[in-house]
């Protein structure tokens, strides 16, 4: 039973009844023969919609659905293999048709049948509009067809110019760098005038056994480190530090009679150590 919002609904015509039906059948058969020529179901639907000869937004989607379903049936009868998307569209349109024919189910979720039909009509109209737009586009004055660019464009030579960047500050800094080059050298500890504590320990360990009696610190300084003040200071400090280490180990004794008086060492005997 037709619903009021589907005014275009009409019964499927009996194929053998009238001339209209014959024409319709021929058209359908032509579609079937041409199926290879269509770019999918939407394209086919658009062609079918055109046969309704109305504004695409006013087409009867229900009628279109029926037309499409008849087409698919006939294709099957003729054993024409339709691509999957044609069958999916058929299933979708069958679903849409049933929903359009039934009274709306208030419990139903998702879009209403009217929304679905309207969207399909919109899709068809949009596709049609894009096809017209494409045609108009291709009909324009196209470059190389009716409009032409310069046939012999002149070459533009590309010159590269290098702009050197240097400011006064760079210049001054460079000069400053040069003039102070000798003063500026990477920091490195000057070891030539340094007598290390390791060296002093080594020396003291070897010498203390031979000293026997109280012997002044200066005697333990290495050769050549007594005359030059910087070297003497370094050697004295290292030797004194080394003597403290040996005293801690109990290997020597240290004696200083008075403040700033000479410091002297002697080996600590084994008896004392016990």
């Amino acid at each position: 039973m037709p619903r009021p919002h589907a005014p275009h609904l009409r019964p499927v015509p009996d194929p053998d009844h009238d001339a209209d039906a014959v024409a319709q059948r021929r058209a359908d058969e032509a579609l079937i023969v041409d199926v290879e020529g269509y770019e999918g179901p939407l394209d086919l639907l658009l062609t079918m919609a055109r046969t309704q000869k109305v504004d695409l937004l006013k087409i009867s989607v229900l009628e279109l659905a029926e037309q499409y379903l008849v087409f698919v049936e006939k294709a099957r009868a003729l054993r024409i293999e339709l691509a999957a998307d044609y069958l999916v569209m058929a299933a979708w349109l069958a679903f849409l048709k049933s929903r359009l024919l039934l009274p709306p189910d208030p419990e139903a979720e998702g879009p209403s049948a009217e929304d679905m039909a309207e969207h399909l009509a919109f899709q068809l109209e949009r596709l049609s509009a894009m096809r017209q737009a494409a045609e108009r586009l291709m009909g324009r004055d196209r470059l190389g067809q009716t409009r032409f660019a310069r046939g012999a464009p002149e070459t533009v030579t590309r010159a590269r110019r290098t702009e050197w960047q240097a400011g006064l500050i760079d210049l001054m800094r460079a000069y400053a760098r040069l003039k102070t080059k000798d003063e500026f050298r990477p920091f490195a500890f000057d070891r030539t005038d340094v007598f290390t504590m390791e060296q002093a320990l080594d020396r003291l360990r070897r010498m203390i056994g031979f000293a026997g009696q109280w012997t002044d610190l200066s005697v333990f300084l290495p050769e050549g480190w007594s005359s030059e003040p910087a070297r003497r200071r370094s050697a004295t400090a290292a030797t004194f530090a080394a003597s403290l280490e040996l005293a801690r180990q109990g290997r020597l004794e240290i004696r200083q009679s008075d403040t700033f008086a000479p410091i002297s060492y002697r080996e600590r005997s084994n008896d004392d150590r016990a």
Partner: protein
Amino acid sequence: MTTAPDTADFPPPPMAEQERMVEAILFAAPAPVSMRELAARMPQGCDPAEAVRALRASYAGRGVVLERIGDGYAFRTAPDLSFLMQTETVEARRLSRAAIETLAIIAYHQPVTRAEIEEIRGVAVNRGTLDQLIEMEWVRMGRRRQTPGRPATFVVTEGFLDHFGLESARDLPGLSELRAAGLLESRPPSDGLAPPLVGRDDEDDIEPEGPAEDLFEDE
């Protein structure tokens, strides 16, 4: 040595001379030249916009006209004289209907994703079609859409505008009517609203090596 300060002291050449300069530059160039490039090539202090305006007026109705194409300007022969140009006519590469429709959809709906093109055409876009349009330099990749999956979008190029004699994509024929009719609105189909899109199977025959997205990954 910097030359800019020296030349800035000179007054710019008279407008008639600037017009000559623009004329020479545009005549020589094979492709549209932008206002910025004109300014860069002309002496300091020139007003290329004004020179272009004057030049355009003086070429109105001539056998060669000054066209605005996107950001640039170029001389092109007057379309009404195309009948004289048989020898210059280049054999247009034959585009498939799919390619022409895809091109139109990109032009009118740009920036548009592949999924949107497919939704409009009702069939899968095979990669060859987009490749062809990109190769012809009529279509290029736009920004990625900031939606899940960040799909690539497609837009038309200046070469497209030049080829079809358009100042800008806003001058596409019938654009405002289509917009007024709501046919350019993006109406993402909600679940169940639109018929499902099939046809990926065919596409697989064409491109067995994988989905098209890979091609356009390096945007």
